[in-house]
C-alpha cells in the first residue's frame, strides 16, 4: 500500500464524483429530502398525544406508577388506565380510536428492585405506524432511562427523583441515525456494484492493471471517498433534523467510528457483489438482493423493536442493524458499552468483507 498512489486515485474519484451532478444531488440533497419527507409525514404525531390504554397488573406499585407518570411526561403519549381483563385486552383495544396499549406485569416493582429482567407488553396496530412508532419510542425511551439508572447502580428508590422528560425520543430522533445508516448503505452499495461491473466491461480495470496501482489501494481510495462523503451527509442530516424538526441527538465523537467503519463495510460489500457477478445486469440484481432487505429492516425508517419477533431476529443478522443500533446508542442513549459491541461487530464484518472483496475482485482474467 503506497499512500501516494492511494491519494492519486482518491483525487480521480473525487473529481469524477464532483463533476457528476446526478451523483452530487443524490448524496447531498437527497438526505435533506429524506429527512424532510419522513419528518413531515410523522410530525403530526408530535402535536397531539397518542392515547395509550394501560392495564397495570402491579397494582399501583411505586415503580409502576413512576413508570407510567414518566410515560405521561413525555407528552407524546397520554396514559389512560383501564381495568380490562388481561385475556381480553387486545379485543378491547380494538374498539378504541388509538389502538395502542400496554400491560404492566405483576411483580414489576419487585423485579426492578431485584434487578431482574421484566417485560412490559406493548400492543400496537401495525397499520397505524404513526401512533405505534410513538408509543414504542416513548416506552423504549422511558425503559431505557430506567435501565441506565439500574445499570449505574442507583438505588431503586431514587426513581421518583428522575426527570425522564428529556430522555424520551420522538420519531425524528430515531430517524436521524436511521437515515444516516440508510445513506451509509445505499450510496456505496449502488455505485460500487455499478463500478465493479462497469469498469470491468469497459476495460478500465484492465488499464489500471497495467499500472502499479494495486487492487487494495484502489479499493482503499474508494473507501476513503465514501468515508468523506458520509461525514458530509451525516452532518447535513443532523443539521436538517435539528433545524427543521427540532430533533434531539447527541453529536459526539462516539459517532465517528461508525462513520468510518460503515463505508469500509459497504464499499467492500458492493465491490464483492459486483465482482462475483458475471455481467452488469446480474451485478445489479445481486446488489439489490443484498441492499433492499437491509434498507428497510435494519432500523432505517422504522425501529427494529416495532417488528414482529421473527423479523427482529432477521434484522440482527444484517450488518447495517449494528451500524444503526450503534449510532442510536451514541446519539440517543449515551450507552457506550453497547455502542462498542456494535462497533466491534461491524468492524470485524467489514474486515472479512474487505478481504473477500480483494480476493474476488480481479484486474485480469486467466
Amino acid at each position, binding site marked *: 500500500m503506497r499512500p*501516494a*498512489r492511494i*491519494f*492519486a*486515485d482518491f*483525487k*480521480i474519484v473525487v*473529481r*469524477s464524483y464532483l*463533476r*457528476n451532478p446526478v451523483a452530487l444531488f443524490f448524496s447531498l440533497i437527497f438526505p435533506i429530502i429524506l429527512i424532510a419527507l419522513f419528518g413531515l409525514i410523522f410530525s403530526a404525531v408530535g402535536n397531539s398525544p397518542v392515547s395509550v390504554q394501560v392495564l397495570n397488573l402491579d397494582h399501583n406499585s411505586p415503580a409502576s406508577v413512576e413508570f407510567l407518570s414518566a410515560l405521561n411526561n413525555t407528552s407524546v403519549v397520554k396514559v389512560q388506565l383501564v381495568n380490562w381483563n388481561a385475556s381480553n385486552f387486545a379485543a378491547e383495544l380494538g374498539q378504541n380510536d388509538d389502538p395502542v396499549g400496554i400491560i404492566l406485569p405483576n411483580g414489576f416493582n419487585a423485579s426492578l428492585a431485584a434487578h431482574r429482567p421484566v417485560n412490559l407488553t406493548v400492543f400496537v396496530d401495525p397499520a397505524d405506524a404513526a401512533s405505534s412508532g410513538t408509543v414504542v419510542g416513548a416506552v423504549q425511551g422511558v425503559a431505557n432511562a430506567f435501565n441506565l439508572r439500574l445499570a449505574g447502580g442507583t438505588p431503586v428508590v431514587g426513581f421518583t427523583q428522575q426527570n425522564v422528560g428529556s430522555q424520551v425520543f420522538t420519531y425524528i430522533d430515531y430517524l436521524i441515525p436511521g437515515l444516516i445508516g440508510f445513506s451509509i448503505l445505499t450510496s456505496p452499495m449502488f455505485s460500487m456494484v455499478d463500478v465493479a461491473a462497469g469498469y470491468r466491461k*469497459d*476495460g*478500465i480495470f*484492465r*488499464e489500471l*492493471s*497495467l*499500472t*502499479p*496501482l494495486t487492487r487494495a489501494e484502489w479499493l482503499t481510495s474508494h473507501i476513503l471517498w465514501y468515508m468523506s462523503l458520509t461525514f458530509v451527509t451525516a452532518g447535513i442530516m443532523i443539521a436538517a433534523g435539528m433545524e427543521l424538526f427540532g430533533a434531539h441527538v447527541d453529536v459526539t465523537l462516539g459517532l465517528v467510528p461508525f462513520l468510518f467503519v460503515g463505508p469500509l463495510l459497504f464499499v467492500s460489500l458492493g465491490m464483492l457483489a459486483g465482482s462475483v457477478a458475471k455481467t452488469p445486469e446480474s451485478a445489479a440484481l445481486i446488489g439489490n438482493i443484498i441492499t433492499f432487505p437491509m434498507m428497510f429492516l435494519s432500523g432505517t425508517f422504522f425501529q427494529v423493536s416495532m417488528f414482529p419477533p421473527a423479523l427482529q431476529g432477521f434484522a440482527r443478522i444484517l450488518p447495517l442493524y449494528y451500524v444503526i443500533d450503534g449510532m442510536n446508542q451514541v446519539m440517543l442513549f449515551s450507552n457506550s458499552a453497547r455502542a462498542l459491541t456494535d462497533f466491534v461487530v461491524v468492524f470485524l464484518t467489514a474486515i472479512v468483507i474487505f478481504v473477500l472483496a480483494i480476493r474476488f475482485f480481479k484486474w*485480469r*482474467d*486467466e
Partner: protein
Amino acid sequence: MADAIEVEHLVKRYGELAAVNDIAFSVRPGTVFSFLGPNGAGKTTTTEILEGLRRTTSGTVRVLGRDPWTETYDLHLEIGVIPQDFRFFEKITPREAVEYYARLFGTSPDPEKLLQQVQLANKAGARFETLSGGQKQKLGLALALTNDPKVCFLDEPTTGLDPTARRAIWEVIRTLKAEGRTVFLTTHYLEEAELLADQVAIIHHGRIIAEGTPQEIIARYGRPEHLRFRASPALADYLRPKVGLPVTVSDGRVDVELHEKRDALRVLSIVEASGIPWEGFSTAQDNLEDVFVRLVGQMDEGTLKSESPA
C-alpha cells in the same frame, strides 16, 4: 543484445478451442514488429499474454527477459500498453490523466510536452467524455508513455479512426522507434504494417502463416510484377512467341508477367516494334494486403501449409 520479446511454442486454449496454437517469434530491441491477422486470429490473445493480462496454456514467453504472468508488476514498470478502444474515466481531462499515471508510476513527465507529442495538447483540459475516438486513442498513447517504457504494445491503435488521426498515430509510432523503443503493433490495416514495421508476422487460426520483413513476405508470397497495356488480343498473340514470358488477355487488357525488372524494357521495345496500337501501360505489384488476402484465403481453402510445426 537479447531480444525484447521472445515467444516459443506458445499455446492458449479456451476449453477445446486453441486461440493460439504453438507459435514462435522474437522481436529485436528498437524495432517495430507488426502482428497481422484477421479478426479472431489470436492477435489480441497473444498481445494480452505478452502484457501479463492472460496466462499461457503452455509455452515460453519472455518480455524484456521477464515472465509476464509471474513478474507482472516489474514488467508493467517497463512497458506501455494502448489497448483497442481505449476507455478512461469520463469526467477526467487528459492533463489530469497524465498526472494520475505519473503519480501511479512515480515518474515525472511534463504533461504538456507528452500531450504535445501525441498531438493532444489542444484538448489537455477537456473531459474524456467529450473527446473524439482519435483523441481518446491519443490519450491512451500518452498514458502508455508516462513511464518512459522500453516496449510499447499497441493493439489496433488506429481502428475506426479517420485518415488524419491515423497518420498522427503513425507519426507517434515513428517517433517511438526513433527514440529507441521497441514497438509491438497489432493491426488489420496492412498499409500500416507495410509503412511502419521492420518485421511482420501474419497469424491466422492461431498459427503464424508468414513471417519476415514486409518486402520479404511480398517477395516470397506475392505474385511477380506485371506490365499491362490496353490493347487488342492481337498484341498478345504477337508477344507470346517473342518475349518468352507468360502473357494473358482480359477485358481489353494485355498482361505480361515479369521475371526480372529488366524484362520490362525488353517487353516495351518489342511492343513498340510490333506496330500494333496500344496505350496506357502500367506496372503492378502485390502489396502486403494482396499477399495477406491471398494467404488467408489459401489457408482457409486448405491449400497453404502453415510455417509453424503441426
